[in-house]
């Protein structure tokens, strides 16, 4: 069972604010899913290699040739705030 402190710790790692009223439901839902997932613990997997990618790939790299990137103004056009040709964000330590 996940507790509220653990929810707050994971939420900070995930950069997610969690409201006071959201803590208990989130802890309960995560615990229920983790309980279900725990069934994997029944399997003996000691000699089994992990799979991160199912299709065999060789030579996946393309030649490293310079090509134009998107124009700066196109990229900045979707930003919530810009300044001097860059993305504007609040100070890390206000």
């Amino acid at each position, binding site marked *: 069972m996940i507790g509220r402190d653990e929810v707050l710790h994971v939420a900070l790692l995930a950069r997610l*604010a969690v409201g006071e009223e959201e803590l208990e439901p989130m802890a309960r839902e*995560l615990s229920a899913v983790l309980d279900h997932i725990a069934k994997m613990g029944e399997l003996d997997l000691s000699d089994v290699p992990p799979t991160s990618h199912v299709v065999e*790939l060789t030579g996946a790299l393309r030649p490293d040739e310079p090509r134009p990137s998107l124009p700066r103004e196109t990229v900045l056009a*979707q930003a919530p705030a810009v300044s001097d040709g860059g993305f504007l*964000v609040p100070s890390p330590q206000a």
Partner: protein
Amino acid sequence: MSATDVLALSARAAADAIEAGSLAPRELFDAYRERAAADVSAGEDGLNCFTWVAPEPPTDDAPAPLAGVPLAVKDLFCTAGIPSQAGSRILAGYLPPYTASAVSRLTEAGATLMAKTNQDEFAMGSSNENSAFGAVRNPWDRERVPGGSSGGSAAAVAAGLAPWALGTDTGGSVRQPAALCGIVGLKPTYGAVSRYGMIAFASSLDQAGPLTRDVADAALMLRHMVGRDPCDATSLEFPEAIELPSAERLDGIRLGVPQELTGEGIEAGVLDSFGATLALAQELGAEIQPVHLPHAPHALSAYYVLAPAECSSNLARYDGVRYGYRAPDPKDLLDMYTRTRHDGFGAEVKRRIMLGTYALSAGYYDAYYGRAQRVRTKIAEDFRTAFAAVDFIVTPTAPTVAFRLGEKTAEPLAMYLNDYCTVPMSLAGIPAISIPGGLSEGLPVGFQMAGPAFSENRLLDAAHALEGAIGFDGAATRA
């Protein structure tokens, strides 16, 4: 041609009619665009399939294989200058600077982008109730869900609001809504279709796939999507051209029925329909035999570690800096990040980010992520072993028919069980198709067939033969 005649055509038949000169591309486009626009105007009384409909028809009618057949595309595909929001508030109004490769390949082949379709937020869901743009309704019963996450794509095709649609499948998101809406949905072999420009959920699983009225349309769309793309290092050259299916018999085809996915947890009416389809397959000459996928019952657990883990990493990019929503009046950078993500993401997306972050956090990595990756290895092995004895594995696509709106929203785990029969194939990266097998309680039941990697041509052929014998009629929902 009358509008009714036009709407009765499959995408392939429409392309043929255009090529033969008996149908103008503009006439076809307008017929569907009007219906799609009417669904949007209907608001609460509509199905809520679309997040965008083309304001006007395209001007370019140059001859091409897909000859101007209108295409509906799931919201999460980037389309240059057209809203691409992945069903999320955090991307509301986002206009990408480029177009996804799967979409541009289809439009280069002559398809015309007609609409973007509603979906579960970031493709996380099995009911299309997790969309920031509202739930989609099932055209078979408006009080029921269309399935998800490609629910808008499935409902639009089933309701005749689009001739065909593009979706994505991570753990069943093409196949399950296709099943619940009574249409065809194909998840190709992982890597067959480029993921470039698909807003990512779980990169080792995400794959684009067609949602269509029939199997031939699925083959036609797939033909124009596959292939290596330098912009996606995990894409592969498909080893052969995708052919239009023509088989009418299944002589000598061995169909394997895994007891692990055809027993407990599957609704009785769904199992009845599944049995009836197996009997038809046998009449067509197929041999039915039991197979074992001993690790399949653990697939869902592995999936609900791996997919959230990948999602927690992929969705780190939504931070209010470069695009999308930013929370107002942040007091500092951390406050901006955490409130932007709190307000911008819906409940299910947050739940999965939390689950994935937890599974990847210090002290838990081996117990969850490492273990899930090993289960994945065993599941892929199970399929390889089974395919030594049979040509295809067949199961019901989903454990139930379409359920009522709101029925499963309170219990995440109950919702996740929808993916029980589709997730194993996703983890193994193999192709799988859902075709309508019949009705149970007046609602469609999907029949799923899966084959080895790159067996799409054989799979489509077998599905086509079976489709002919089933003779499913979806015309009523297109009226």
